[in-house]
């Protein structure tokens, strides 16, 4: 029964969180956005004390059910592990192994140092929610989008507006490779040994393990009923049941309740242990029966996804794709306050990247900020009616109260490049940047000061520019725009 409740809840959480990463329309986030916000690390980074306290109390009461229900990477491993154990031969493939404490504590220390030191990308690499977000965004979302596009194709032919097409594009090669490697790594570990990742690498798992030792309810083996058949131990994906000594390593138990159902003698029950049963954790025996890190030769299949070619039917002029200009300072989304705040709070979970409908946000390839989002305007610009990224951000790294705040936040400023400007190169009137500037920061002035009737070129009022990129995106000059946005380290309200 307890196991069934756990599975039901886990499936609900897992599906909803996954859908958060798949739903590019941002509709689901209104209803289930909180599921991302109660993730441990995001809550911690958002200084969401209520949630953090709640999770601590939850763990102190029931053990690590966070790991078995709330954490999407945990449930994802359970799913893989379940498939891994489908064959009869592999059904009872687990066995007890002692904790790899040195490894897990050192990783935790590295993680904490990275977090405090503001090396967000390293922390993001280890954090389970972020890792899962990257996998979902990079590996699952394209299929979801393609599926949607097939429906959109048919909807269009049925004259329905229920579905619309969305663009699938590779947002960042390094992030894609990291997501792919994480996926393969986690897949192999989970397929073979269940929850190895959670109990040896995951820093959140390690933190919770300190609390779980003292949890009020826990699975307890009744040594009188137990006949040491080892069934529970062989069913334990955390490898934490020492059936010979009737002991369970509660620091690694994720309260999945599998052992309770596995035991044929009802010797295991989920309850508060009696005083006599509170035994110390067994001494770690120094035997490494299996290599914990499976060394696998991994051939990173770098998907050479070509930029989608434009349809040219001869009646239309060919349009060259825009290229990313070299920006001295990266552009961060409005609501991220400043570069330091952002680097410290962002877990690089890719949720904002998933919901950005304008193709603006993408993971950074810069080593310092690897996988954390940054903005660029070749595909679209930061539209005034949208603040989806701040709505979904679980950590408060991107935080806006309303659209007015966004429209008045200066995240960068436009820079004019004379050499590319169409009135000067093609000799025709333009002014598309000024026409679309939401703040009226661009004025058109005569290119020849002595002739007021001469073709007009843009003049930028940097004080009024918010850096939204409308000018850069809609500039007719290709592949490089004649006007581009340079980011600001410190955002400010104008």
């Amino acid at each position, binding site marked *: 029964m307890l196991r069934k409740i756990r599975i039901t809840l886990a499936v609900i959480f897992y599906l909803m969180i996954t859908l958060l990463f798949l739903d590019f329309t941002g509709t689901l986030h209104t209803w289930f956005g909180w599921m991302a916000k109660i993730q441990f690390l995001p809550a911690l980074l958002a200084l969401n004390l209520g949630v953090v306290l709640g999770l601590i109390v939850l763990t102190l009461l029931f053990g690590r059910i966070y790991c078995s229900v709330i954490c999407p990477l945990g449930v994802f491993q359970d799913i893989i592990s379940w498939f891994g154990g489908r064959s009869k031969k592999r059904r009872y493939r687990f066995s007890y192994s002692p904790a790899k404490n040195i490894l897990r504590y050192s990783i935790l220390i590295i993680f904490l140092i990275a977090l405090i030191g503001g090396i967000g990308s390293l922390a993001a690499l280890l954090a389970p929610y972020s890792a899962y977000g990257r996998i979902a965004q990079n590996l699952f979302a394209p299929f979801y989008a393609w599926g949607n596009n097939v429906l959109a194709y048919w909807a269009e032919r049925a004259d329905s507006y229920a579905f619309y097409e969305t663009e699938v594009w590779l947002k960042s090669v390094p992030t894609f490779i990291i997501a792919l490697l994480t996926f393969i790594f986690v897949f192999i570990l989970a397929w073979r040994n269940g929850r190895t990742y959670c109990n040896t690498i995951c820093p959140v798992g390690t933190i919770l393990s300190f609390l779980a030792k003292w949890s009020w309810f826990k699975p307890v083996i009744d040594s009188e009923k137990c006949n040491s058949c080892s069934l529970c131990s062989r069913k334990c994906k955390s490898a934490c049941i020492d059936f010979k000594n009737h002991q369970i390593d509660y620091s690694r138990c994720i309260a999945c309740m599998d052992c309770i159902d596995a035991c044929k003698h009802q010797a295991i029950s989920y309850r508060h242990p009696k005083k006599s049963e509170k035994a110390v954790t067994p001494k770690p025996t120094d035997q490494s029966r299996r290599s914990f890190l499976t060394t696998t030769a991994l051939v990173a299949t770098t998907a050479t996804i070509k930029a989608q070619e*434009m349809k040219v*039917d001869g009646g*239309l*002029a060919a*349009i060259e794709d825009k290229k990313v200009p070299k920006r001295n300072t990266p552009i961060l989304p409005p609501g991220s306050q400043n570069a330091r705040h952002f680097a410290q709070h962002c877990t690089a979970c890719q949720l904002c990247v998933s919901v950005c409908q304008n193709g603006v946000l993408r993971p950074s390839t810069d080593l310092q900020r690897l996988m954390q989002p940054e903005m660029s305007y070749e595909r679209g610009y930061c539209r005034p009616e949208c603040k989806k990224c701040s709505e979904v951000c679980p950590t408060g790294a991107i935080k806006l109260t309303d659209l007015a705040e966004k429209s008045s936040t200066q995240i960068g400023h436009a820079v004019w490049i004379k050499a590319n400007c169409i009135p000067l190169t*093609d000799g025709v009137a333009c002014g598309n940047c000024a026409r679309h500037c939401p703040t009226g920061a661009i004025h058109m002035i005569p290119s020849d000061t002595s002739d007021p009737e001469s073709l007009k070129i843009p003049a930028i009022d940097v004080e009024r520019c918010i850096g939204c990129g409308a000018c850069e995106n809609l500039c*007719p000059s290709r592949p490089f725009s004649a006007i581009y946005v340079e980011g600001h380290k410190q955002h400010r309200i104008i």
Partner: protein
Amino acid sequence: MSEKYSRQNITRREFLKIVGISTVASSTILTGCQSGDKNKGDIQVKGEIPTDKMTMRENPKTKEKVSLLGYGCMRWPTLPAPEKGGNVIDQEAVNELIDYAMAHGVNYYDTSPVYVQGWSEKSTGIALKRHPREKFFVATKLSNFSNFTRENSIEMYHRSFENLQVDYIDYYLLHSIGNGGIETFRARYIDNGMLDFLIEERKKGKIRNLGFSFHGTKEVFDEVLAMHDKVHWDFVQIQLNYLDWHYASGNNVNADYLYAELEKKQIPAIIMEPLLGGRLSKLPDHLITRLKQRAPEASVASWAFRFAGSFPGVLTVLSGMTYLEHLQDNLRTYAPLVPLTEDDRLFLDQTADLMKQYPTIPCNDCKYCMPCPYGIDIPAILLHYNKCVNEGNLPTSKDNVTYRESRRAFLIGYDRSVPRLRQASHCIGCEQCVSHCPQSIDIPAELHRIDQYIEQLKQEKL
């Protein structure tokens, strides 16, 4: 400018008024005609299309009989992707269409060196070559829009013979006079001596009939027509339909004037845009109901063709039929033509009045403005806008009952009809397209207006 804005701001009350008038008018007609035999379930609603009933008109000069339906070769079916060498036309389909038209009495085929991205002449020539030369009349044009020089113009003239695979051209036109005013006309045909050259060619018999097609202002028309005494125009091609009769768009001249002037001089008229590039068959719902209720079995398009064909001075009515169904529908209308009655004329005049109150943009999808050097798909944007106007998907305020559905239909439909990079937001207003538009639409102004409207829709600031 301000007038253009007010045109789109049609209020709900006005809208209801228009719909109300048309439904009342048409429902009274409907009640009068509820007879009919319900027992004949197996009867074909529309019988076979007769092959020998096509209404013919006589060319006063040559006495030849021209079919009232002429085939416009501007909208041939295209391939999904261009062939090697660049051809974009589906030749098989063209052959089938021309064979079908020939079999049903259509003997006039009108093309131009610039149609269908420059491939129409060749394709039309291939299809016509399969028929005896004396069975058809072919018309083509001197479309020297961008390069006015004598050399280029003469080369263009000779290439038409090659492409069409003919020794003589039955009807040759100075293409789209009036675009760019009288100066452009002089530069294209007078100063380079091309008109004299063509008159010589007519004398030699290489051109059997010489005329011009016209889009533009009254002054240019009057001046060119005044040359009749000297040049002797054998025919003139004008834009005529029940909307343009009194309500020509932009600077263009109302068709009633054009036709009357030709009548005065006894010059046969060839009609183009009888359906306004399909705009007269894609009407707002309430107007479709109106037409359908007057003649439930007649197609919406047939009204426009009957209108154009009913004028006795019309030699032929051109229609750019892309699909066999269009061809069949038009054949039915003209085999034979049932001329409009006085009542019908009045009815169409009223329909035009109602239509005029509808804020569509007069784009006929002729694509003369294309390619836009900055990649904008101009006709697709204007057509999408018109489609939304006609379907009532142009919300004017958040308070509209159907605001949400209309907004979705407009925005999603926009992305479907026009790729993002070719949308109105990318129009820089260089104005290179303006002089090409035969309907004298101020394209950049319209695109910027539509773009602004879309911005309001997206930002929900209506």
